[in-house]
């Protein structure tokens, strides 16, 4: 994965965490992982579609998540209920949205998908042949780990469903039906 895709996300995460929960963020060591990710208590998964495409995941521990969400929503959460999950999803959404704005400033246009929230420790999330860059961000609330499995679309390379069909012989589409 291209490292220039990394900074927009880290900057966005640092700024959003600072603005939303006045967090002092320290960046941990960056690592590259090719194996699948083993999920933490809560993982927010957001896909990017466009010039930069792939998936971004935000993984965190339950207590970290509860601290963050309590602070953002201004009410105390003691369990990961649907409101808490939706608060966390929104945080992932805002960080990813900000990061794509930074991409667009450098000429890459991407759209982000709606977030999906995975709760439950220990399942494997595979991004297949996309290696992941893993960045732990430490705050006073705990650690938020950002996983980036992104690629830049090469010029002239269409990111349309057509490109996937070659591998499996799919029936032809009826045009105009």
């Amino acid at each position, binding site marked *: 994965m291209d490292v220039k895709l990394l900074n927009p996300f880290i900057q966005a995460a640092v700024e959003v965490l600072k603005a939303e929960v006045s967090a002092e963020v320290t960046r941990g060591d960056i690592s590259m992982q090719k194996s699948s990710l083993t*999920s933490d208590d809560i993982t927010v*998964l957001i*896909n990017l579609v466009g010039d930069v495409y792939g*998936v971004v995941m935000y993984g965190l521990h339950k207590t970290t998540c509860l601290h963050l969400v309590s602070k953002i929503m201004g009410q105390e959460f003691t369990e990961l209920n649907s409101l808490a999950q*939706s608060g966390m999803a929104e945080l992932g959404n805002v960080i990813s949205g900000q990061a794509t704005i930074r991409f667009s400033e450098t000429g890459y246009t991407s*759209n982000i*998908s709606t977030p999906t*929230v995975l709760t439950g420790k220990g399942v494997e999330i595979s991004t297949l042949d*996309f290696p992941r860059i893993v960045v732990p961000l430490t705050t006073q609330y705990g650690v938020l780990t950002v996983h980036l499995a992104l690629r830049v679309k090469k010029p002239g390379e269409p990111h349309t469903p057509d490109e996937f069909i070659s591998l499996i012989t*799919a029936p032809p589409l009826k045009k105009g039906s």
Partner: protein
Amino acid sequence: MNVKFLNPFVGSAYDILSLEMKETIQRGDLRLDNGAYKTDDVTVIISLVGAVDGSVFYSMSKEVAVGLASILMGEKFEALDRLAQSGIAELGNVITGQASMKLAEAGYESNISTPSLIIGKGATISTLEFPRLIVPLFTSLGSLTIHLALREGLQSNLKTSQIKIPKVEF
């Protein structure tokens, strides 16, 4: 969820599975679920972004995944290794790709994301306020379930960079 988004997915899955497995597959009863989804052994997650927004999951047991991968890739798999996993992800991709083309023909242009694969039973996946439409498909190997959490895109023609995000204070 808008039911007109359902048929392209069920139709594509039906066409592709029938063709690959050389058998007639059966569709089970539809149901709508507002709760979170408890994962089966293998789940493929693909998002749609555009005039249709949301996520599609394809879930199945490990046996079905290994069996399907063996048929799709034309070689016998014993376990769900990396290659088998990529075969299953590819199946999700192809079904979603065909469905998105059908949706585009109906005037709903969307892009699909790369697939992610969740392996492991019992985790919970929430699509938040999106209810899921669930369609089981039965094959001779076992069942494959399609979960659709889709809605008409709110900003169908807007790029992310045009969507207003609250001003960040420094």
